[in-house]
């Protein structure tokens, strides 16, 4: 392993021959083709799970700040449940246990089960952030909204949430980067994403370092890209006159 061999990515995955221009043709694929498709799976799992997590996490976080005991309890229970079981175990539950217990779910592709598993796991963390964001606003804002004649949902919609979401963008940024990293556990249920590619291609080619470097680089690029997206959003919604806002 003393020298680099980046040509490994140009090899055909079946016969190991180096293919000119590195991309396979006519149904044959190279390791580069495989790597890119694995990256696609990683991105799809991550982004869809992020959607699920943002949606459910926000709802649960909001419920936990509501002035109704039952809702608070529901939000708390949800958060504790999905936060205190290891992600890998949750993925196994979705893949092995849930379809066995609920027969109609048997036909659901494992890709969607992983999206659900990763999404619900992350929703617990996002619910924490959203709750903290809402609670960081002074109680006076809620009262001011209600005193203007807003109903409780209107008070959340127009007064509390716009500020709370601005406050939680930084922690949500790191959660979104975490979701890309955490999507790696999908290898355990045979989703053909980057980590599974790394494991299998390493074994087939014995060029582990090159393969791992490429995969690690792609994880890094993906997380960084999400970071930039959130940063852009953060800039766009800055409030003049607030800390960090324009004047």
């Amino acid at each position: 392993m003393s020298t680099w061999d980046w040509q490994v990515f140009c090899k055909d995955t079946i016969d190991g021959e180096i293919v000119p221009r590195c991309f396979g043709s006519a149904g044959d694929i190279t390791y580069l083709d495989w790597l890119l498709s694995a990256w696609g799976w990683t991105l799809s799992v991550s982004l869809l799970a992020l959607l699920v997590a943002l949606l459910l996490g926000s709802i649960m976080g909001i419920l936990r700040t509501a002035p109704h005991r039952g809702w608070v309890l529901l939000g708390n229970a949800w958060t504790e449940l999905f936060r205190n079981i290891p992600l890998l175990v949750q993925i196994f539950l979705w893949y092995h246990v849930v379809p066995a217990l609920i027969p109609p779910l048997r036909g659901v592709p494992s890709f969607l089960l992983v999206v659900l598993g990763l999404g619900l796991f992350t929703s617990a963390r996002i619910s924490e952030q959203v709750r903290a964001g809402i609670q960081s606003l002074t109680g006076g804002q809620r009262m001011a909204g209600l005193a203007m004649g807003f109903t409780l949902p209107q008070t959340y919609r127009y007064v509390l949430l716009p500020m709370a979401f601005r406050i939680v963008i930084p922690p949500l940024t790191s959660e979104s980067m975490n979701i890309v990293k955490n999507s790696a556990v999908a290898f355990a249920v045979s989703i053909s994403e980057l980590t599974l590619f790394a494991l299998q291609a390493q074994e087939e080619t014995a060029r582990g370092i090159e393969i791992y470097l490429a995969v690690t680089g792609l994880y890094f690029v993906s997380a960084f890209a999400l970071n930039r997206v959130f940063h852009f959003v953060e800039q766009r919604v800055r409030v003049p006159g607030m800390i960090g806002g324009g004047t």
Partner: protein
Amino acid sequence: MLTLDFAFLTPQVLSSYVLKGFVFSLQLTAIAMLGGIALGTVLALMRLSSKPWLTLPAAAYVNTMRSIPLVMVILWFFLLIPLAIGRPLGAEMSAIITFTLFEAAYYSEIMRAGIQSIPRGQVAAGYALGMRYGQTMGLVVLPQAFRNMLPVLLTQTIILFQDTSLVYAIGAYDLLKGFEIAGKNFNRPVETYLVAAVLYFVISFSLSMLVRRLQQRIAIIR
């Protein structure tokens, strides 16, 4: 609809399949926590020093570790350690080294925040009493930082305990693996995964309740 049957999980089965893995998971958690906090404190002090030849490598190490998925870190070390030491190393030993080095990056961020939370006047007071750097840190700053950060350090340890299940990637025999093998041998994977989930939940949840209580006590003492 499948009917659940947990009867096969007798004490004998549990002790012959699960116990070994459970012990390893706890060992891994404990070693990675102690080693990670020790190493993390060193990294934090390096990052907070004024010398670039200390801050830069520490920052690079911490940021690299934190931007790679843990599973990939586990795979990296499993690949690289044998190359470095010239002979193969068992999955369990590899996991212990990996987790210690990986968690150090996360603990160091916590310790750094903890050290920064101590007013500068405390350092000045230490120096004013004639203490050296090591004494000021060891006797004045770190004990306070450690106490302030105890709940966060423990919360990170709960996450660490959950993350130990990821040694699945290199086939180390941990708690989850123990349940998985029992499930395969008795052909009852649904039950074993369920019990594993409940066990992880009970441990993590009760620890996080303890941390919450501790947090309230610390808040009162302040």
